[in-house]
């Protein structure tokens, strides 16, 4: 199966359901062959954006270019955009083979060619032996693969996946996302993957866009978004984040972070003075028994054993802070009520200036 790689370019896209604005000022550039994720909570507009690319839902304002051609006003059946639905949407009155053949029949492909291409697509997802089954005789994972085969067999310019793993159970989900990625790499198909699960987005995508409230918050590789979130929403949405409110003070070339409760953390020089939030990941904080320079006094509230790590919830600096300690065999754990001191590795912390 061959596909010409096509990039996706979205320019100043706005969309509303009646009076309700659902998407605002979407600008996005996806490279040919890229595996791109739309990540966001429910109601963030990520599925709406995906459906707008496929041509479903209300007509948006703005441009959607695929391979350089604006398709924003074309009906869905003229877009050549393959979409895999969350519910798979396999037609229950057609056999697996008929489902997969559908798109080719609509394209008036000769009968003999349909047969070979359907066989190829089924082989690609490893389900050749199920060709004559009906969809309701398949497991969830099999249905998922058939839905994928049905979409890629038409050799679409881009592949859209709407929460494709959400209807599978946890263990199958991990397996399927690897298979998805392997398939995407094999076909070189520009792919957009919609999910609310940051782990799914992190493990599969080359780059992703985090959406909230119909606005793109940040675009970047998973690592960029985790390490350098541009705002508190992204920081909280990707992984666990401890956020302390306070001010950055710069004195004689040395920067300090003073929390709302008056505790002080020293900072690497780059800080800019003013009201700021500091984002500390749980693994960037150490628990010390003795107070030291720039440590925060606290009290252990709660402890969870996660296997490789022990996660403590510590009350300090007027808030509750999550701290992960890697676990070693035979280690003695702290009990709730223990007095401790927290030392933050501020070099890995992110400073987010407060607006207004």
């Amino acid at each position, binding site marked *: 199966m061959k596909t010409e790689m096509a990039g996706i370019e979205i320019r100043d896209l706005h969309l509303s359901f009646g009076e309700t604005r659902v998407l605002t000022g979407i600008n996005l550039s996806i490279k040919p062959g890229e595996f791109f994720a739309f990540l966001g909570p429910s109601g963030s507009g990520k599925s709406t954006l995906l459906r707008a690319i496929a041509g*479903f839902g209300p007509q948006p304002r703005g441009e959607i270019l695929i391979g350089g051609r604006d398709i924003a006003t074309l*009906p869905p*059946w003229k877009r050549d955009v393959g979409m895999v639905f*969350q519910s798979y*949407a396999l*037609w229950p009155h057609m056999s697996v083979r008929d489902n997969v053949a559908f798109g080719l029949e609509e394209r008036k492909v000769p009968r003999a060619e349909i047969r070979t291409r359907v066989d190829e697509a089924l082989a690609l997802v490893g389900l050749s032996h199920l060709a004559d089954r009906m969809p309701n005789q398949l497991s969830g994972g099999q249905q998922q693969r058939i839905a994928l085969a049905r*979409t890629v067999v038409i050799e679409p310019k881009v592949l859209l996946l709407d929460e494709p793993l959400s209807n599978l159970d946890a263990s199958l989900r991990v397996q399927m996302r690897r298979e998805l990625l392997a398939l995407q790499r094999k076909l070189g198909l520009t792919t957009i993957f919609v999910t609310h699960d940051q782990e799914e987005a992190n493990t599969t995508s080359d780059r992703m866009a985090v959406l909230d409230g119909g606005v793109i918050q940040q675009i970047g590789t998973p690592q960029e978004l985790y390490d350098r979130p541009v705002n508190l929403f992204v920081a909280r949405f990707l992984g666990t984040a401890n956020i302390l409110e306070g001010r950055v003070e710069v004195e004689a070339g040395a920067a300090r972070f003073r929390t709302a409760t008056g505790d002080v953390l020293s900072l690497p020089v780059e800080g800019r003075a003013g009201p700021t939030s500091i984002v500390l990941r749980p693994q960037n904080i150490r628990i010390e028994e003795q107070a030291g320079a720039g440590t925060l006094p606290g009290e252990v509230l709660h402890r969870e054993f996660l296997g490789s790590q022990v996660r403590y919830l510590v009350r300090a600096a007027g808030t509750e802070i999550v701290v992960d300690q890697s676990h070693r065999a035979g280690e003695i754990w702290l009990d709730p009520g223990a007095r401790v001191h927290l030392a933050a590795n501020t070099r890995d912390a992110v400073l987010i200036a407060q607006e207004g």
Partner: protein
Amino acid sequence: MTQGPQPSGRPMSLADRLPAFLFPRLSPIALVGLFIALILVGFLIYPVLQVIAVAFQNPVTGALTLENFGDFFNSSLFRQSFFNSFYVSALSVIVATVIALPLAYITTRFNFSGSILIQSLGFIPLIMPPFVGAVAMQLIFGRNGTINLLLRDHFGITIPFMEGLNGVILVQSIHYFPFILINLSASLRNIDRSMEEAAQNLGAHGLRLFRRIVFPLATPGYVAGAALVFIKVFDDLGTPLLLNVNNMLAPQAYLRITSVGLNDPMGYVISVILVAFSILSLWASFLVMRGKDYATVQKGGGGLAKRDLALREKILAYGVVLFILLIVLSPHIGLLLLSFGTIWSFAPLPDGYTLANYVRMWEGSQQYVMNTLLYAGIAATLDVIIGTAIAYIVLRTGIAGRKWLDYMATAALAVPGVVLGIGYLRTFQNVDVPLVGKPLASWWVIIAIALMIRRLPYALRACMAALQQVSLALEEAAESLGAGKFRTIRRIVVPLMAGGILAGFVTSFATAAVELSATIMLVSNDRDSPLAYGIYLFMQTPSGRGAGAALGVLAVVIVALGTVLSQIIIERDKKLRTAGRA
């Protein structure tokens, strides 16, 4: 069913004192089930088996034989009747489809303001017995009816809408198309949007999309509706009788029994054929639908996307809808005109208008109305009681053989009214009712029982659906707080089912009030006649038509009022419940 330990303080029942082998220990609910089973066997299964047995017996010697069937197929009249019944049923399905399909499609696929019109007016045909409309249809579509008079005057042509079998087909399809409309619309609404979007995404649209995806997914509903129409038309007695089309199966059975006598085997042979065809078409529709639960609506995802109509399309849609509604409502319009008309003959409209028909109807038919309220009231009340009991036993207990209650009650669907009537006459002609001094077959109560059996399947479905909406946890909560099975049913289950039970009651009542097939066989004197038979009697003479039409209007009004009332109660019930939840 798990039974807790018996409280020790309870007095010994009769069953406890008898030897266990004589009287197996049955829970009270099982006893209720057994009682219902006896009713169903006595008033449905046995009479029908009796009819079937007679069909296979030599009328003189009583020996088992097929010669009755030989006689049937050797008679050209019966062969003709057989063919006609089949032909009329098949064509009625086709015409009903032509009426229902555009209505279902327009309401489910488009944002169309006329949808409410279709939803409310589309059901009106069902509340009027088809034979009542038949006379009015003669006056509008008949050889000398409104339409043909106008056609003749302006174009010099006439169209034989109502000639012979055509008339039966037209009347039946206009009356029964809502069965297809309801089922098809429900099926269309249950298709998940993504089914359609996936097809569009892969390149299909327009008519191809409808033909390859939407319609196939709606077939289960369509087939269910179509099978129902086929059976109803095949079994119907009143309409052909009133249109004076006698060479069909049901009228032949009726005429043989009433004119030749209860011992003539031909009526029984026809009954067997009617039952066989009913079962056959139910079975065929079951085969078509097997393994095709296409209700694909996902949680959160709506049905098919509705599209806005352009102005031109909107005009076209309104045109189609109004045209269909005009045809569909023509029996009602005709009936109304007839009831207020003085003389209506060889004229597009009545010569003048008067209230005299209503006066005459009221003087002559109070007894009919009272009888109808009594019979339909008894039938519908028993239907919902039995329906609720069966629903509970089938869905909530593990009593052995519980499914058979459902099967037996539902089997009534396959038994035409004529057949049930003949079965009752045969079975109960020698069963004397104590104190009344008449055989059960000619006592008025038998009419109410026949109506009860005939309407039970519909009431049962309504009760089943209502019970399925009641979460088991609500019952378990009541039981864990100390309510016994019967108190839980009375205080929790039945109140929560109220809406569904009421809906079942109203449908049973309304349809029983206008039923003719079984009652026409069982009415032994005019004083016991229900409304439907009264209308039939009036309509027999040209001079009685006006009064008959007035009685027909009254019947429609009673049924319509009942429907409106039940809607109000259901709405209030719903509001009450949501208020309790908030």
